[in-house]
């Protein structure tokens, strides 16, 4: 499923950095401890997190994450926004909590 379609199919989304809207995403990952995400996330997966520190961009780059979804309506730090913009990583916030976002994404066909 394309990033554009994923974001279009979820309610309560605020897009902070629009990038790679035609990129196909097939898998997802959820986690807030960045060292754990670095060690465990599959590459090219969509990432759901409540962590809004600038280091999220570095981990996303490392794991080739095309889209970071900040759950529970978390607002990205300005540094994170800038860095995602620079690296071409899509960044959006969503009102739902991580549990609900993951459920919705799974139903949309984003699976590991």
């Amino acid at each position: 499923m394309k990033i554009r379609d994923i974001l279009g199919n979820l309610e309560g989304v605020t897009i902070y950095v629009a990038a790679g809207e035609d990129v196909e995403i097939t898998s997802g990952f959820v986690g807030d401890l960045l060292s754990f995400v670095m060690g465990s996330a599959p590459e090219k997966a969509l990432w759901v997190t409540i962590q809004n520190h600038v280091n999220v961009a570095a981990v996303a780059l490392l794991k080739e994450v095309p889209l970071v979804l900040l759950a529970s309506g978390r607002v990205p730090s300005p540094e994170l926004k800038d860095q995602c913009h620079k690296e071409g990583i899509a960044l959006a916030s969503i009102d739902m909590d991580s549990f609900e976002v993951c459920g919705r994404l799974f139903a949309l066909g984003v699976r590991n």
Partner: protein
Amino acid sequence: MDLHIHTVLSPCAELDMGAPDIISCCKEKDIDLIAITDHNSALNCEALNRASTGSGVEVICGLEVQSSEDIHVLCLMPDLVKARAFEEWVRKLLPPYRNIPDKFGDQFVIDEDNHVIDECEILLVQGIDATADEIIEKTRSFGGLSILAHIDRPAYSYVAVLGMIPENLEVDAVELSGRLTASEALLWLEKAGKRPVIRSSDAHTLKDIGQERTTMALLGKPSFHELSLALKGVDGRKVLWPWDRNSP
């Protein structure tokens, strides 16, 4: 020196962490510079300061602040007045949940003779409403020194939570826990960047305190000011690699 010691104020600390007890234990173990770093509070720093008078053990007033991301930062202050003012800032950002002594432990405020003069009612082991980066910046604005606590631990560590230490993060040192062997400690050097690395006891009971969990530093005398120069490597003062004397 040992820059990470808890007292009976921290609910997780044992009741043997009284003021004269900590001082005499450090004296016995030849540790002459210590920092008192209870969770989110400096309320027992005065007792430790007083208990240390004439002992040859110098006490730095500090706090181990827990950030909103559950990262522990040691915030060492130049003096008691600054520590109190900084603590005031921390207290305002602490969530209002009350301590349940039976479950979490007592939070005793003591004097230099271990008399209990108060009990802290708000639970101290909580993340305050400020990020680690904000805490580091605030510490600097108070003229204090900030140290990332136990970055090698799986919990409450900057590296565990945020993956890496940004190059431009203005933190004065990073701490590795005393339980690492020399070879394990070396693996963490790269993560520290060019920052000084210290080793501390994170003592919650007297038997945690000991030379094998300290750091040697070359200082003119044991003091906050000299420590701040050593962390910057000024005029021959410096922090020595803690594991040189104790191979695994």
